[in-house]
Structure formats: structure tokens, C-alpha cells
């Protein structure tokens, strides 16, 4: 198992490298003038200023040199003696340190690392709350629909989930903003229903809990972000549960006289978990990065928002740096999902081993 994990971790490297290289090429091949974007503001850039800015960002070097600089900067493994200003010295005998320099944003003039430090935690918080909603509501609805197949509850759940998945995220977001943000202010709806239209809590306790009034900032974006996934999870749960509930061992359990709840939760659900856990796991990684529209509508200072900003400003280092983070995160979460299979299904052994 350890060998399997190590192999998977090492596999992340070529994946990230490929994404990185692709982005680098795109930004150098497609007509792109970061100096005009950074210094221009709608006017021709003075040649002296152009030279100064190019030098500042290393744009006066050849593309190969820039690529090499970028790769060596991103390389997270440093040994003692590999001293760079601002880099903390290594610890321990191996003197190994992990630190990646993702470059510097053209438009914001600060290291991409600092952007990641600021935005990634916010995206993780939002994704976590969305997952909590997704799991609580999605599982409950899915199980209910499976257990009460063809009942009114089942039909209702099916219709609702289809509708929610079909509804575009921004429509849902703006609609909820209007219902919970604007109407209570105007008096059409009671004021205790008022939630914040945009923004984030001032502070967080224990990383995940919003401080004081902060709940009112979290609810809408979390619900909007969770909406599509919840619907999908409900459907997936229902389907998987139905399959499992038809299995022989379930019939045996019922015949044995176990109570319905025990059968559903302890036996059926546990077996249905693998596809469900896969969905949740992949969802988490996706939600962190792909919460772009939600973060934009609700002005949630997360990594998706920063990425959109970077793309619209043609800010290559930001896009490159953030993509690396997301790719690595995604690969890592996938690994965790795979490892979790061993918890749910004792038959699963990770890594190939020939059975004689």
C-alpha cells in the first residue's frame, strides 16, 4: 500500500508538468502583450517604460530562459545550499524543504504564492460547506427515494433534482440573491430572512466556522455551489441503493429479522458507498476550483475568482500558478478517494499483487 501511495504521489509530477508546459506554450504562442496590459491602460506604452517593465518581469529573456526559470521556480524540492533570498533554511538531516515559487502576477505585482495563500483557504471553506450540504441533503433524499421507490416522495425528488441540475448556476445564484437579499430589504419578505448578497465573513473560528454574523455570508454561496452536486448525488445514491437493495445479502438480512434501518444503513448503504464516495471526493476537488461562477456572483475571494481575474487580465503567471495548485490538489484528492476504498470494502487491495 505504501508503495502504491508513493507511486501515485510521484505521478502527480508529470501531470503538473504537462499542464504547466501547455499553459506556458499557450501564453507565448497566442498574441499576448503583458506589458500593454500591465502598463497600458488604453494608451501606447512608452518605449522606455516598456523596457523597464519587461526587465522587471523577465520578459526580455528568451522563451526558453523564461521556461527554465519558471520550472526551477516551481520545483518544490530544495536542499540546503540552495539558497534564495526569503527562503527559509531546511530542517533535519536530509535538509529537504518544500517550497514552490509560482511566479509573480503582472497585474497585481505580488507573488502568486501570496494569492494562493489568500484565496485557497476560502475556496476550501466554501467547498467544505457545500459538501456538507450536498452529503446531508443528497444522501437523505437519495436514500428516501430509493427506499420509497415510485412513491410521491420519489417522483418529487426525481423531478426536483432534474430541474436543479438543468438550471444554470448563475440563474440560481442571482435568483437567491434577489429572494434573500433584496426582497427582505424592500419589505416584500420578512427581514429575518435577510442574507448577505455578497462578500465573506470577517473572520473564521477553527478555520471553518464563520465568526458571529458571518453565517449570513456563507449560506447562499454554499447552497448555490452545492445545488447541482446535491441533485446528482441524490440521483446517484438512489440508483446505487436500489441496486444494492435488490441484492441477495439484503434479502438475507431482512429474512434474518433485522430492522429496516439497520439493513439500509449498515448493510446496503455501506456497500453502495464506493461510487458515492468517488463522487463526493471528485466533487470536493472540483468545487474548490470550479466554483468560479459562484465566487464571482457572491464576491467570494477564492481561487476560482482569482483565476477568472487572471484570465481576463491575461495575467499568465497567475493562471499558470493557480492551475498548478488546482491540478495538484485534484490529483491528491483523487488519491485520497482511492485510499478510502480500503475502508469501505475490505476486498479492495490497492496496488497490483498477483494472487496465486
Amino acid at each position, binding site marked *: 500500500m505504501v508503495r502504491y501511495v508513493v507511486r501515485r504521489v510521484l505521478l502527480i509530477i508529470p501531470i503538473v508538468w504537462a499542464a504547466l508546459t501547455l499553459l506556458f506554450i499557450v501564453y507565448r504562442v497566442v498574441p499576448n502583450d503583458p506589458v500593454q496590459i500591465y502598463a497600458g*491602460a488604453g494608451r501606447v506604452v512608452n518605449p522606455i517604460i516598456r523596457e523597464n517593465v519587461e526587465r522587471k518581469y523577465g520578459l526580455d529573456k528568451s522563451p526558453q530562459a523564461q521556461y527554465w526559470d519558471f520550472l526551477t521556480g516551481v520545483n518544490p524540492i530544495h536542499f540546503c545550499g540552495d539558497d534564495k533570498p526569503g527562503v527559509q533554511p531546511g530542517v533535519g538531516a536530509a535538509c529537504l524543504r518544500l517550497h514552490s515559487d509560482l511566479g509573480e502576477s503582472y497585474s497585481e505585482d505580488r507573488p502568486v504564492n501570496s494569492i494562493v495563500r489568500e484565496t485557497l483557504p*476560502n475556496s476550501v471553506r466554501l467547498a467544505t460547506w457545500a459538501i456538507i450540504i450536498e452529503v446531508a441533503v443528497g444522501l437523505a433524499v437519495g436514500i428516501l427515494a430509493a*427506499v420509497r421507490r415510485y412513491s410521491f416522495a420519489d417522483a418529487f425528488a426525481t423531478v426536483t433534482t432534474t430541474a436543479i441540475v438543468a438550471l444554470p448556476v448563475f440563474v440560481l445564484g442571482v435568483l437567491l440573491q434577489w429572494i434573500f*437579499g433584496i426582497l427582505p430589504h424592500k419589505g416584500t419578505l420578512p427581514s429575518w*430572512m435577510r442574507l448577505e*448578497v455578497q462578500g465573506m465573513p470577517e473572520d473564521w473560528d477553527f478555520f471553518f466556522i464563520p465568526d458571529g454574523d458571518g453565517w449570513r455570508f456563507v449560506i447562499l454561496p454554499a447552497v448555490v455551489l452545492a445545488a447541482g452536486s446535491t441533485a446528482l448525488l441524490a440521483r446517484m445514491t438512489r440508483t446505487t441503493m436500489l441496486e444494492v437493495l435488490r441484492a441477495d445479502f439484503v434479502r438475507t438480512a431482512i429474512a434474518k429479522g433485522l430492522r429496516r434501518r439497520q439493513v439500509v444503513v449498515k448493510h446496503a448503504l455501506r456497500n453502495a458507498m464506493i461510487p458515492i464516495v468517488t463522487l463526493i471526493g471528485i466533487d470536493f476537488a472540483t468545487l474548490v476550483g470550479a466554483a468560479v461562477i459562484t465566487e*464571482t456572483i457572491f464576491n467570494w475571494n477564492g481561487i476560482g475568482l482569482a483565476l477568472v481575474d487572471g484570465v481576463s487580465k491575461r495575467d499568465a503567471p497567475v493562471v499558470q500558478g493557480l492551475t498548478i495548485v488546482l491540478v495538484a490538489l485534484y490529483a491528491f484528492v483523487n488519491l485520497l478517494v482511492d485510499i478510502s476504498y480500503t475502508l469501505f470494502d475490505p476486498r479492495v487491495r490497492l496496488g497490483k499483487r498477483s494472487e496465486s
Partner: protein
Amino acid sequence: MRRMRRSIVLLSTILSLALVAAGCGDDDEESGGGGDSSTLIDLQNFGVGGPDKIDPGLARDVNSSQPGYLAFDGLMENDPETMELKPMVAEAAPEVNEDNTEFTFTLRDDVTWHDGEPVKPSDFEFAWKRVLDPEFGSPVSYHLYPIEGAEAMNAGEGTELGVVADDEANTLTVTTEYAYSLFPRVTTHLVFSPVPKHIVEKLDDQTTWEDDTMVGNGPYKFTSGKKTTGSIKMERYDDYWGGLADKNPEVKTIEFRISEDETSAYGVFEGGTGHVALIPEGRLEEVKEEFGDRVIDDPLLAVNFYGFNMKSDAVGGEENLELRQAIGLALDKETAITASFGEGARKVPSGYVPEGMPGYEAVSAEFAAAPEQNLDRAKELMEEWGGDPPTLSILIPEGSGHDTQAETFQANLEEIGVTVTIDPLAPETFFGRVGEGNYDIFWAGWVADFPHYDNLLYSSFVTDNGDNLTGYSNPEYDAKLLEARSEPDEDKAIEMYREAEEIMLADVPVIPLDWGTNRLVISDKVDNFVVSKLGLVAYELATLG
């Protein structure tokens, strides 16, 4: 069976109640504010994206400059309501030598930095040298080039600057490379702000000063750096000397909220939080209906125009003058404005330099800025021109209504026999194409950096100048401007600038299409909200309550 179903229903009910109940809570402020009642929440300045750089030496657009203008006071300042030039940190207008090349400012002695230290002439000298340092990489250093030695310094080729700071006598003497009567006006631009030498010279990296709280000398001080989550906060500086209004601001804190999307930002405003917001594109009527007289609709010193490639055989030069005149008369500017931006969204220009410029008087511009479309006269001019029906290309930036505007004009020009192809370009390829000379007509805009005729007329139209995108060259025009720059009497100088403008418009190198307006909506909790013609808000004059 029944038990399990019940428990699931119970669970879902509890969950939904929990969500709704979380919406309850201490909701005391019914409308306006959304924070401490002495905080003014601004949703418009960064309503469509966060700031690039707010350091006074690096800020390159109006919105990024807004916080800087509140935190830093320069030698001179433009009165926000009248645009009159007034002394600020300088105690009076400078002494100027005969040929307008030497300016001596005597500073006030009661101006302090936010940390209490006095503002000295050497702070100005230090700040300007910092901007001109090639390593600093400032995109706005070119405003300082008229100072002797500045351009060379910025190119890394010189170390001497024509600035003498005498801290004992409290004077600052500036020598310019050439006659530059408007220098006092130019110092109102943010890039000429002083910076606290005693703090900034100790920094390792000059460009990251703005990430932490910058120390300034203006009516407001920063309480957060640029590395913030979602907003930039400023607080009143209680030991301020009073400024132009000779009193401290009333509003205690200002919060500039950053939003990526103007529609959501406006949603926040509608929801009762925030005191000023942008009006989302296309919703002017709706907003006017709802907020009535709280909609601000003021002229902005900005002009958008079509420029001709004066070096091309197709449209440039003397021989094609009638063609350009005809095109100028054929465009139905008012319809185009209505179609692309909404009725009355922008003004139809009657010249190039917008109304509202200090010293403005209407100029005659029969063809370039005709008040109305005149197709008959345009057709006559085409006959006089006598060439074959041409096919011309118009370069426009992608999006933002430019395409609709161009399409309106395309239809207009069909009627006089000119076929037009529209070529939308992404911003980064735009200036490259124009620079190559590979076009017939292009769209461009100019927002004034400071309220003076020179800013709009010099660098864009003087022969071979950097901002001269059309390639226009008229020695008579060049001479007139140089004369204006050497004229010490401001009224006479402005008259000369107007004469130059008329010379230029008669040659029709550009056709002004619209003059900008500033559109905002304010809440009823805000009073005396002054927006200057440069698009800057004078928060030091506002009141809340």
C-alpha cells in the same frame, strides 16, 4: 419502516430550519450602511474588478488612483467642484521664471505624514526619483518627463534630475526641459505625490509598499493594505491640516468594496448595503425610476473618437480631406449612442476637448464634430473628392458596445458609397496593429489625466509623438502648441490651445464620437457627494446621516 421514513423527514426538516434560522439574528440596520454607521461603503470604485496598483507611483487608472488621491496630497490640487487650480501642500502658486522653465514652490509648514512627521521638500524629490527609477518599473513615469533629466533617468542613462529640495527654506525648485507653462497644473496628478522618505527609503522592495498600510499626508489614511480580502479600508486622519475646504472630513471610515461583477455589486446596493454603486449597463431607466434624483449623471473629461491613418493612401493626407469630411458628416452619432449605450448615455461632441474642461468654449468643427448628420452635404463632398467608392476597415476593441456603434456607422457610410468592414480586436493586439500602420480607421478614447487642454491636444497630435496614433502632422499645429506652452497668462494660453484645436479639427484626422459621462447612484444616507470631472470622488466633502 415508518420510523426510518420519519427520521429522514425529521432530519431534512431540521436541516432546512437550521438554514433559515441562521438567517435570523441581529439585523438592526434596516437600510444603508451595513456596517458601522459612520462608515461609507463604496461599491462603485472597484465595482468591476479589484485595483491593479494603488501606490501613487504605480497607479495607472482612475479607479486604482482613487484611494491614493485620498491618502496623498500633492503640491497643487484641482478643486473637485470647479476644477480650479489651487495650492495644496504648496502654500501658494509657484514663482515662475520668464520662459516658463523654472518653478519654485514654497511649502506649507503644517502638513504632516500620518505618523506625525512633517512633510518636507525632500519627500517630493525622493518620491519623483523613486518613480523614475528604472527598477521600479512605473507605467506612469512619463508624466515626469518634462522635468530636466527625467527621461534619461527613467531610461537608466542619467542620474541628475532638475529638482532642488531645500528643507531648511522649505522650498522645492523644478527646472523643466522646455517651456512648460502648465507644470503647476500637471503636479495635481497622483504620480507627483510625495512619499515619506523616512519610511520608504528603508524598504527592501519598493513595489510592495502598497501591500501593507501606506503612510500618506492626505485627509484619509490607509487602515488596510492591498493584500486584503474584498475591500480597501481608509480612516480619517484626525490631525489633518484642513485641505482645500479648510476642515476635516466628516465621514470617519471609507470602505472600498471590491466586486468582480457590476450587476452583483448593484444587487448589494439594492439590498440596502452600500452608499454608492455603478449603474449596470443598460439599466439606466430602471435605476432612474427607482432612485430618481439620487442618480448622478455628470460630464467626464473623456472623449472617444475614430482616428484616420493619416499616412495611408486610402484615407490620409491633403488629397483625401474631402473623403474624411464626408465621413464626418455622414455619421449619425446620436443614434449610435442610443443603440450601443442607451439613450442619452453619452453626449454628442461639438469638438474634441470636452465641455467641462477649465476655460472651455465651443470651437468650430464643421466636419469632424458636426452637430447633426448631413447626408446630402456628405454626398456632395464625395463627388468633390472624386475617387472610386472605397472599402475601408475600422479597428475596434472587442465588446462594450463598440461593435453596435460601428454597425450603425457602417450603415450610415453605405449611404454615401463607402463600404466598411469592422475588425474587432483583443486589447493586446490592438496597439500592435495600429503601430504597424495596418489599418484605415481605428477607435480610441482618451480620459484626461489632469484638467488641461494640453493633456488632450499635445501628445496625441503633435508630429511623431508617442501617443500620436493617427500619424497626424501639421507644423502650424505643432508651433501653436509650443507657443501656448510658453505663454505665462493662462487665459491667453487656453485661447491658443483652442486655436490649435480648430486647426487640427479642420484637417479631420479624428472624428469625435462621444464625450464621457460619470454615472452613479447614491443612497439617501449620503449628502454632498461630489464627483469631479476626472471621475474622482471627493470623499472628504461627503456627509453621512
